[in-house]
């Protein structure tokens, strides 16, 4: 059994708290222990670095300092938290003046930048493994035709190398395939959903997210799967502006795990685009089903 330190981030404690619960259920099943970062703070997302680079570095350094004390690898499921924390750790380790600046600001906390940061896809691939995942499937989800949607920040991290192909990532494809879903090829894996501009320019987010949902429909998918809470919400919100797209739910990767492992998820009611059809199509394995 492995234990990770865990940085849920602001979204997973508010608008996407059901993602936090889903993730905990699935990782508990695989006996991956989670130790939530003690008194973590917001990563500052895109707002802090737009204001001042040092502010962003300090906000991230605070969480990194807390995580480093545990000596565990850190799981950050939100793409923004993951990208910011990971890039900051590398910068703090590699750049003396940044390291000195954050340590002075945060004293008596101390930070080295040695932290290993993982997203949820890396966590499944590295700490559970594809074979174990395939062997643990108890329900048939072969009627799910899914398009994996990675978004921007999971692979394109400013100042840090990516663990997956930047233009055509495949980590989530591999996991979904192991779970028994039909992975539909498409070109929009890493298109931008409109990110944090929903509050200030909803039309634009609707347009960008709407393009992605339209492409999912055209590709013949009946579900979009993502790992980022902001992407999920932006895509889910298209239901309020694009009636023509209704019907394709946007699931978190861990919810697909729940369908394949447990046959259902207790939190499906939080989806703006209903996932009832998908849930209804799950089959109990064994007997005559493949």
């Amino acid at each position, binding site marked *: 059994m492995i234990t990770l330190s865990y940085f849920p981030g*602001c979204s997973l*404690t*508010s*608008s*996407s*708290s*059901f993602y936090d619960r889903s993730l905990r259920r699935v990782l508990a099943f695989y006996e991956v222990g989670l130790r939530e970062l003690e*008194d*973590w*703070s*917001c990563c*500052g*997302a*895109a*707002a*802090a*670095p*737009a*204001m*001042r*680079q*040092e*502010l962003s570095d*300090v*906000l991230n350094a*605070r969480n990194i300092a807390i995580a480093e004390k545990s000596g565990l690898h850190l799981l950050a499921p939100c793409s923004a938290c993951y990208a910011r924390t990971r890039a900051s750790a590398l910068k703090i380790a590699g750049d003396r003046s940044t390291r000195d600046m954050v340590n002075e*600001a*945060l004293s008596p906390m101390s930070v080295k930048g040695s932290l290993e940061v993982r997203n949820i896809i890396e966590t499944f691939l590295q700490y559970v493994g594809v074979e174990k995942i395939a062997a643990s499937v108890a329900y048939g989800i072969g009627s799910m035709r899914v398009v994996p949607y990675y978004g*921007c*920040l999971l692979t*394109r*991290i*400013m*100042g840090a190398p990516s663990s997956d192909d*930047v*233009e055509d990532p495949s980590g989530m494809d591999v996991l979904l395939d192991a779970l028994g879903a039909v992975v539909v090829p498409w070109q929009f894996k*890493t*298109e*931008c959903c*409109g*990110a944090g*501009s929903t*509050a*200030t*320019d*909803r039309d*634009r987010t609707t347009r*960008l997210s709407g393009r992605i949902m339209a492409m999912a429909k055209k590709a013949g998918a009946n579900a979009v799967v993502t790992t980022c809470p902001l992407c999920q*919400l932006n895509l*889910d*919100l298209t239901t*309020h502006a694009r009636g023509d797209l209704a019907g394709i739910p946007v699931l978190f990767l861990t919810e697909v795990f729940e369908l394949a492992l447990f046959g259902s998820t207790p939190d499906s*009611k*939080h*989806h*703006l685009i209903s996932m009832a059809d998908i849930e209804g199509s799950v089959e109990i394995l064994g007997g005559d089903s493949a």
Partner: protein
Amino acid sequence: MPLPSFLDEIETRSGVTVSVCYQCCRCTNGCPVAGEMEIVPHRVIGYILSGEREKVLASTSPWKCLQCATCSLRCPNGIDVARVFETLRQISLASGFAAKNDVAHFDDLIIDSVQRHGRFAELETIMRYRLSKGQFMKDAAMGLDMLRKGRIGLSSHNIRGRKELGAIIRRMRGHRDR
């Protein structure tokens, strides 16, 4: 002593070597919002090279950028164009060009929230934004649906270290509580 050029200012502040740009346009081709930018990405870089500081900073382009980094990924010369856009935001804020910009305003409210609570309080921040804009009923149907399905964080959590963190943020923003 002559003032440092706009190019120097950008390169020093961002750590990105902009001067190797040969205007191939790939950054603009990959940008999902180039169509709504007053000055498209490769032209922004071009104007930095030719020293058109005011033209770039007064445009809305830095604030239209989504920081999706497609441009940085595709630049054949390894120019981190997204980082340059982020730097333009910093300079534009520091020199007063962004005073009335909505994105800058919303960012400011987000950092307010982190300064007070240690975390981003969704509902409180969005309400403050809507109030400041006089948009009381904007997207009401959407808001109701989100509320009904538990997609709006109603409560805000105060971290224990918020006093210490708040003091650091206040100092870094360079002003007192407002």
